[in-house]
């Protein structure tokens, strides 16, 4: 199961992990979070990473997104190999090529929605592409609330600002870490809808970590992780299909 199951596809790869390992601690207390994971994330595809807690799904995302270091193997974002980058170059890479959506605490409370959306460009010192930004804002339906501060927005609205921020700088790839974890189901569905639309309509590449089968069902493809390894993958998932597959892992885990 460790061979790349997506090798047959011809589309370009936005990010790729090869034999990626991440080990915490040493000797007896050693914990293997990722065990020689090889996986490709294709351009213009919405990928969900699933797995029970402790399966290494967040670690995988963090390593691929340049937020965390890894012990062995390689990670490429586009043509860039992350393993050889220093902190400063990693920061620049995240700034210029990657968008992020976190579970919570996504926005700066001192900035307005508009300022939050253009923050990555501000940091990079780039002029935002106004037309594109307006398109993104329209898509997430925030036009009327641009001058509001995060405290004046609902949780769902805040997360939509975060989605807009991730999209606004046109990154090569967007990573979401349980982006709907803190939202009620309706707001969650909205946010997931926007993410899917960004992939379908704008050609964006999105990778999302989630433990929610419903959220995973919005993706084009689901990768299942267990004990630090990629154990399965599913194309065009449905919520029920994902749930069943998860139950199988659970059952296997119990019998083994």
């Amino acid at each position, binding site marked *: 199961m460790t061979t790349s199951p997506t090798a047959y596809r011809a589309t370009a790869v936005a990010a790729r992990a090869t034999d990626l390992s991440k080990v915490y601690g040493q000797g007896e207390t050693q914990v293997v979070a990722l065990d020689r994971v090889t996986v490709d994330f294709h351009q213009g595809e919405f990928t969900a990473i699933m797995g029970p807690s402790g399966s290494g799904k967040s670690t995988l995302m*963090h390593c691929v997104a340049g*937020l*965390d270091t890894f012990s062995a193997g390689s990670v490429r974002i586009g043509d860039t190999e992350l393993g050889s980058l220093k*902190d*400063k170059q990693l*920061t*620049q890479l*995240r*700034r*210029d090529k990657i*968008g*992020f959506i*976190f579970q*919570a*605490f*996504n926005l*700066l*409370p*001192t*900035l307005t929605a508009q300022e939050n959306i253009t*923050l*990555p460009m*501000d*940091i*990079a*010192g780039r002029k935002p592409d106004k037309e594109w930004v307006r398109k993104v804002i329209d898509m997430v339906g925030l036009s009327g609330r641009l001058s509001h501060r995060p405290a004046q927005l609902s949780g769902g609205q805040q997360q939509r600002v975060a989605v807009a*921020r991730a999209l606004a700088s046109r990154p090569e790839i967007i990573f979401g*870490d349980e982006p709907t974890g803190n939202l009620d189901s309706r707001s969650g569905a909205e946010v997931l809808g926007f993410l899917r639309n960004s992939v379908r309509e704008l050609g964006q590449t999105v990778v999302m970590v989630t433990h929610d089968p419903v959220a995973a069902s919005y993706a084009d493809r689901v990768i299942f992780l267990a004990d630090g390894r990629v154990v399965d993958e599913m194309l065009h998932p449905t919520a029920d299909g994902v749930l069943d597959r998860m139950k199988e892992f659970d059952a296997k885990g119990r019998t083994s």
Partner: protein
Amino acid sequence: MFRTALRNVLAHKARLLMTVLAVMLGVAFVSGTLVFTDTLSHAFRSQSAKSYDNVAVAVTSYASESDAKQEPGLSQQTLDRIGKLDGVASVTGRVDGFAGVADPDGKLIGAGWSNKGSNFAPGKDGEDAAYDFVQGSGPVKDDQIALDKDTAAKGEYKVGDKVRVATNGPVKEYTLAGVFTTEDGAVSAGGSLVLFDTSVAQRLYLAPGYYRDLTVTAASGADDRRILDAVEPLIPDNAEAKTGAALADEQAKEIEEGLSSLNQILLGFAGIALFVGIFLIANTFTMLVAQRTKELALMRAVGASRKQITRSVLAEAGVVGLVASVVGLALGVGLAAGLRSGMAAFGMKVPAGPLVITATPVIAALCVGVLITMLAAWLPGRRAAKIPPVAAMSSVHAVATTKSLVVRNSIGGVITALGAGAIVAGAAMGSDGRWIIALGAFLALIGVIVLVPLLSRPVIALVRPLLVRAFGVSGKLAGQNAVRNPRRTGATASALAIGLTLVTGLSVLGVTVGTALDKMTTDQIKADYMVAMASGGDLDKSALAALEKVPGVTAVSPQQSSSFEIKGDWVSASAITPGDIERVLNVELVNGSLGTLGKGQLAIAEKTATKQGWKVGDTLPVTFNDDKKGELTVGAIFKDSEFLSPVLVDTEVVAPHEAKPYIPQIFVKMAGGQTAANEKALISALGENPAISVMDHKDIRDQFGGFINMMLNVMYGLLAMALLIAVLGVVNTLAMSVFERQQEIGMLRAIGLDRRRVKRMVRLEAVVISVFGAVVGIGLGSFLGWAIGQTIKSSLPGYALVIPWDRIGIFLILAALVGVLAAMWPARSAARLNMLNAIKTE
């Protein structure tokens, strides 16, 4: 409850560190000051007790030199008569005055300290008990002297060398007969002491055969009181006899008084440190309470009363205060020991003695430390008690509501308005308004401190565009972060504002007065040089004669201090040289003619003339210093000036009535003005006298301005103290901010803000807060400086407000540096934050 408090202290060790440091510094200052002055006073007291050990009775004459009717001192006969009394072992006569010793280059040794001359008074055994000779022996011939060991060493003089010594008369060369050590106070303070043969000293300082003091030692078993009773009838009216014990007491009291001003200055420093510290402590506890909102609400929910919550916060403060006080006390004792050796390094000799630690500093240190900390924690404690139990359930609870800021701002506004009103009213009242200004200043300072959170938003909003332009996104975020918690920003900025208010106020005042003095010297003094004794004493008549003969001198006038009784009132007068006075000083004539001075008439200052109703042509009945009466006519009225007494008169008029004229300074105008050659000619005409200084305009200004500069330097020491505490405050606030904003910083790092810019963001926030505090302080200080200036305006002609922009610029730069310095550690920890942990933390 107490156990909870204790646990909290232990749990927040790092957080409380800054509080502990602030309390500790204040306490160290208080206890250090007290221990230092106790130690000094103990040492001085035991020294003075020792110096009066052998003295049974001391007699001092208060005869004044100009009073010709009375005996000039204590005569040899009096001494002999006392010597024959029952129970008297010996009597020593002393006569002393100024004596300056020139080093081989002709410069005065020990300038700025006391330069004393006295007589060598050998007893029957040929020794003088007050002096221990380490080389040679005491002076017994007219041309011999002895020097104290330090002075001899400074001049590199050995026994047999020729030494030039200046007394109030001309310089004379003596042969060094001996070098001694002594317990004399003038010497232990860093001054010089010259011993002459008794007859020489009498001639120099008093009159042949007379002494100023007699010291009586008792034979063994004799009672001091009885000797005193026997001595009293033998001495003239203008002398007083006291027992040695009484004198030792008196001197001890004098020492205590002398030290008490030092004590007060140092305690003032400590007070400011503690006052500033209050803000820091209050800030820390506010933050601790805010962080523990849920915890405290839970305690309320499970049944803790409001009182118990307040008490637990106070108990926590008490523990912190106690720990800080104990450490501060230890530090204070070290500080006292350090100060003493520091004084020695500056050439001030402090008599040896043990470090004295009495109960007072210990109790004071502990009380001050604990009480200040608890006082500062009281408001946060009350706020903690107001947290509703339901806050335990909800995720967010706003501690500071806008409503309380409204109340706060109203109170602050009222206090500030009252204070500003009092200051303006006081300024309008002139010199009577000083106390009202002081009260107003205090109110305004408190009011502004209360208002600082309100002020922070608009003021910082003003500079935000600048920050964005200069530093981009870091600047933008820093500007916004700085006003996120106005209370905290306010308290932090206040710490800096207090110090800067004082320092700016005094700088404005000092520079303004200094400028006025400058203007006055250049406007009022037309002379090129002012000649005066370095000791501040009076010049000998011979100096005047010598100066008149110098080639190139175009005008010379003494400013001889004199006085008359006119119609029953004593008026001080300057006796001057007619014709020359208007060429050396600016005398603005109002009425009459200065030429009349030459005819023996008087010139009167305008204010005195108006007050007394004297007019040109009036003839006034005058009583001279020797009680002779006469009549003098008013020949001129002139404008009042700082350099002139209310009455001017020809020296010739008072000469017959003053045996020994008192000439504090002589003004000299020379052809060619102030040149090195002219100065040299004057110095050489005065016999290269090390005790006489020839001052040009710059020297004169420095002499008047010296005090102001010294005062300003003391205040800058104060600034340093305030800055130090302010640094702690800013560190504290930033550490808090960074801690509270971990997630934000993590997110910023994730979306691409590099470490350098995270650091810059924190640093800029610190700079914004510090500079904001400085601006508030500088504004208030300048206002105060202006107000106090108004009260002294009337007594200082040429007064005009000067804002010392250069110094203010330096203060601002210092404040910015404080910010950068304080942000070092918080910025680094912000940059090092583990991104993933920061984002995950809930």
